[in-house]
């Protein structure tokens, strides 16, 4: 299939904005030419005036629920939500049933992603068998199956000795361990951020300290072992500061934040709607401000969705039983534009760094995602209108679930086309597969 994209402006790692027309043929970009220059005719010719053409987005953090919880999401429905959100690669979190701790499971996940054909599904691996925090998972076996990103996400690795061994063992395998930072004994039964709001609402609190203690511990373990470490969904101001200092010390650490942690505060729980229960919890306006500064100064490398679908009958339980998590794939780019670009805190190129080439590097897929938009590169692209306003409607989602915290909100920035491996998988905001 060949595609010609005319009228847009390229933004990539090397270009803040450059008007050009782009032609894709097969799975490659075959021409990047001056606006209006002659190009051979293509199967699909699209006019994208006013839009940005960028490398496809990469999500380090998507819960696809398959295998085991297909009532909430499947790899196909999650991939479709990803494509509609402009993503061409997503890391599938390991907390499925069974979890990603053996070769057959990760091969199944990758294969289901291939069958869906909407984006590249990158299975993560577990740090410990069964995500139980007791025995190391078989990293080399999983690496042979293509896994480069390992996490027990949903659980933090509690035992410092085990985490030390994990980092030491991982060091020679050129893989990255990603921590869900939560000291579990401090968050037992927690429903929301510990602070003024939880005190008023009488809901059990999740103290910031529970995250920060583990961030601090793991930074010191990186210093000790020299292994590479990624911090998942950081949510507090102190966590950002700890990572900032670790980077200043030259440690090989990276970090992500979730869109909801830069856009929603703990006050959202005032109406007791379980859609706003998420782990780590929504924090305060001061935390949001610090996370945004972290993104602006590069302390935070990536924006990762923590897309966490839950079927309605699971999510609409009393708050103490409702599972934590919210949808994110279809709104991530618009939240980033609305909260970071429109507010003047981060350039559009900076936001795309956090949504594309930085996470591509962290997930070790920089050979095919987050690439510059130039001739010969793999055709993984997103085309979006950075100024288009739209109203989020939880009932118009490709996800199987509807736990969307932005329902009814007006956001700016809308994905129009997504091209994955040379295929136009999303055209004019509609999935083609």
């Amino acid at each position, binding site marked *: 299939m060949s595609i010609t994209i005319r009228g847009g402006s390229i933004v990539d790692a090397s270009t803040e904005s450059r008007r050009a027309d782009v032609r894709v043929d097969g799975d490659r970009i075959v021409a990047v030419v001056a606006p209006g220059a002659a190009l051979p005719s293509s199967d699909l010719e699209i006019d994208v005036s006013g839009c940005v053409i960028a490398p496809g987005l990469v999500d380090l953090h998507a819960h696809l629920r398959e295998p085991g919880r297909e009532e909430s999401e499947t790899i196909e429905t999650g991939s479709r939500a990803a494509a509609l959100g402009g993503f061409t690669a997503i890391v599938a979190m390991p907390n499925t049933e069974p979890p990603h701790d053996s070769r057959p499971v990760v091969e199944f996940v990758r294969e289901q992603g291939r069958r869906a054909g909407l984006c590249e599904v990158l299975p993560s691996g577990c740090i410990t068998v069964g995500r139980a925090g007791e025995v190391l998972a078989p990293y080399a076996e999983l690496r042979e199956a293509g896994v480069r990103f390992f996490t027990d996400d949903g659980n933090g690795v509690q035992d410092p000795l085990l985490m030390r061994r994990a980092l030491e063992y991982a060091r020679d395998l050129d893989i990255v361990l990603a921590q869900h930072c939560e000291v579990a004994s401090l968050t037992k039964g927690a*429903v929301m951020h510990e*602070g*003024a709001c*939880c*005190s008023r609402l*009488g*809901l059990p*609190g999740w103290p910031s300290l529970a995250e920060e203690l583990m961030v601090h511990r793991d930074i010191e373990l990186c210093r000790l072992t020299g292994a590479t470490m990624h911090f998942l969904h950081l949510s507090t101001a102190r966590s950002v500061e700890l990572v900032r200092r670790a980077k200043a010390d030259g440690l090989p650490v990276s970090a992500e934040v979730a869109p909801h942690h830069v856009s929603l505060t703990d006050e959202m729980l005032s109406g*007791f709607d379980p859609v706003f229960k998420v782990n780590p919890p929504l924090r305060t306006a001061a935390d949001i401000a610090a996370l945004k500064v972290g993104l602006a100064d590069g302390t935070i490398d990536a924006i990762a969705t923590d897309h966490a679908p839950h079927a309605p009958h699971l999510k609409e339980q009393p708050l103490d039983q409702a599972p934590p998590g919210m949808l994110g794939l279809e709104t991530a780019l618009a939240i980033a534009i609305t909260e970071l670009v429109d507010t003047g805190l981060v350039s559009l190129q900076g936001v795309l760094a956090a949504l594309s080439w930085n996470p591509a590097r962290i997930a070790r897929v920089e050979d095919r995602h987050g690439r510059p938009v130039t001739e010969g590169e793999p055709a993984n692209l997103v085309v979006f209108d950075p100024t288009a306003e739209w109203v989020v409607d939880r009932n118009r989602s490709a996800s199987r679930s509807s736990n969307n915290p932005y329902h009814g909100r007006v956001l700016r920035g809308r994905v129009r086309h997504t091209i994955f491996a040379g295929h136009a998988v999303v055209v004019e905001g509609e999935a083609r597969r």
Partner: protein
Amino acid sequence: MKHLRSIPEIGPDGIVRLLEISRRMAEVNRRPVPKVPALVGRTVASLFFEDSTRTRLSFETAARRLSADTMTFSVSTSSVNKGESLRDTVETLDAMGVAAFVVRHRSSGVPWQMENWTNASIVNAGDGWHQHPTQALLDLLTVHDRFGLDPSLSSLRGIRVAIVGDVKHSRVARSDVQAFTMLGADVVLVGPATLMPPEVDGWPVSIAGSIDDVLGEVDVLYMLRMQRERMNEALVPSMAEYGSRFALDARRAALLKPGAIVMHPGPMNRGIEMQVDPTLLPGSAIADQVANGIAVRMAVLFDLLGQPEGGIPS
């Protein structure tokens, strides 16, 4: 008023209105036949997901004295044990034609979540650590009665209230702090820091670490129930040590100023927070609280379900 779910939702005006209706209901309760036909034909369902005998009986007695029909749902005998969801339970009872749900649940916020699944009125009989508004109203009524006050937006000005014990896990404390201060009372919270909410900066209260510092100053000493399981969470070293610092015993009772009253939401832990027999305390208002509970709950049900027709239907 559609629901009674929290003290802030009804505000000071709602509190005063309900206290005035409560006094009229207390008068009904003093009649030889304490029953009126105000809610004939309306069904009140009590939906108790957490054990409570006194609150449930108090609500059901209130409903019957207004001639409402009552329906009781308690978890031990229900389909919840077969895995039925809260939503399905509410929708099933709603389909039977319920005018009001009286709900208690261990999870804060359930009365708000239920709004999505029923058009009936919702009365919060206690949600998690959050709110227990009828307890706050009956506590206010008791204080007004004992001090000979008429409810108004400033009727408790000059009244000093100490709330002692496990404030952190107490829906009674949260509701009472708001209700007492809305009518002008000064409230001091007393307890170890481990049993205080994590952040009370915005609360209109002062904090004291010792009960002995406040005994001689307060008009109302409100003792909270201390739950034994708190010991397993390392919140206090032992019940004995808790008692030595925060219990009401005969020595401390003697230090109360003349005319001060002692309150407790029940059920009491004798030998833990109450180390003196309250029936021997001249200031004990605990029995009044229980009696006032019925009048207040009659007022609430009447206010919710007697409207919009107003008055007592013939």
